[in-house]
């Protein structure tokens, strides 16, 4: 068993104990994952204070509803990363956040990343697959899909940024997602 495997199993164990109401397990999960999840919230929200509020929301919700994690089906860090991204995007859409896009500043501050979480993240095959499949798209499809995914942009924002009509942006992305799906399902 590699160090990454051990770390993954430890985190999985903490998630299972968390679901059973073990408060110490929540702290263990927080210590192991908060740097990674804060990076995600910060990237999407572009504001430190908002990102901290989002992160607080993530762990409070995790505590209240830890039963949503199914250890049989998902890698814990990948599940948590998706959970954090979704909460951050919900916050963005709630209209409470006046975002000044600052993803670059965020990225510069934290370039050291989180090697532990990184090493634990998901299986190599899936990682390679999604990169391969994105690589099959046209540049304008890929760039806009990435901007939606990493910066939480809406169709309207992407259309404005790209200087194209909303309908054009929608059809670009929809065709891109269609192609991505076919590829991810392994038919390409």
């Amino acid at each position: 068993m590699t160090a990454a495997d051990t770390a993954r199993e430890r985190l999985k164990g903490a998630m299972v104990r968390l679901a059973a109401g073990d408060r110490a397990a929540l702290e263990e999960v927080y210590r192991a994952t908060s740097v990674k999840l804060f990076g995600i919230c910060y990237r999407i929200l572009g504001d430190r204070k908002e990102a901290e509020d989002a992160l607080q929301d993530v762990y409070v919700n995790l505590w209240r509803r830890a039963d949503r994690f199914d250890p049989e089906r998902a890698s814990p860090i990948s599940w948590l990363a998706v959970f954090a991204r979704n909460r951050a995007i919900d916050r963005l859409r709630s209209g409470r956040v006046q975002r000044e896009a600052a993803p670059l500043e965020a990225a510069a501050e934290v370039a050291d990343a989180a090697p532990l979480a990184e090493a634990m993240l998901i299986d190599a095959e899936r990682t390679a697959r999604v990169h391969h499949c994105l690589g099959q798209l046209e540049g304008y499809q890929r760039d806009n899909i990435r901007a939606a995914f990493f910066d939480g942009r809406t169709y309207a924002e992407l259309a404005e940024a790209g200087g194209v009509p909303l309908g054009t942006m929608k059809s670009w992305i929809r065709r891109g997602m269609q192609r991505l799906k076919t590829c991810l399902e392994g038919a390409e």
Partner: protein
Amino acid sequence: MTERDQLAAEYALGLLEGEDLLAGRGLMAAEPEFAAMVAFWEGRLAPLLDEIGGAVPDEALWARIVAEIEAVPGGEVVSLKARVRFWQRAAAGAAMAAVGSVALLVLQPASTPAPTALPGPLVASIPIGDTPLRLGVTYLPDRKEMLVSASGLTADGVHDHELWLVPPEGELRSLGVVVPGREASMALDSETAALIRDGAQMVLTREPIGGKPDGQAAGPVVAEGAFATI
């Protein structure tokens, strides 16, 4: 992709806003197939999140999280219910069966009702005066979150409209000022959330900009409606 598949992809990517987002949230709660399609996208795109570097949050954040968990009245009940659900599911797996039954025994004396399914969303469609416009309200009990869609409304620059919950007894509870032309999502405190059920009444009042001023009576009721399950 079918239109439904497309919406799932857009929902997972986070592209939606307004009514489309509301529709997506409704489907997430109501249709397992839709939720599974969203989960497909989330799972497949998740490796990309590894590209985002980490960042260290404020040291005081952990204390804030603990404080919030401990402060919420009824929080224990919520987590107990969640725990019961978890163990019910876990108990289906052989590895968990033994632990699961122990946990259920421990939880039983607390007389926590064991919910069999997540409560579905409640919705209200409130007609505005004699106009064709409607205010759409969706409440997600699961997340104690309310979505108010006022996309057809425009601001007159002089008034705001405030939405109120009419509890069976006691005073009206403000659900916030409606933002014309927008879809707003808000988290409800547990006490207010507990009052929202099938048939719960709401009224919309006309107020000065910013909502009802403290210490003054609410303005005239301009519309009303009630929550219903879907």
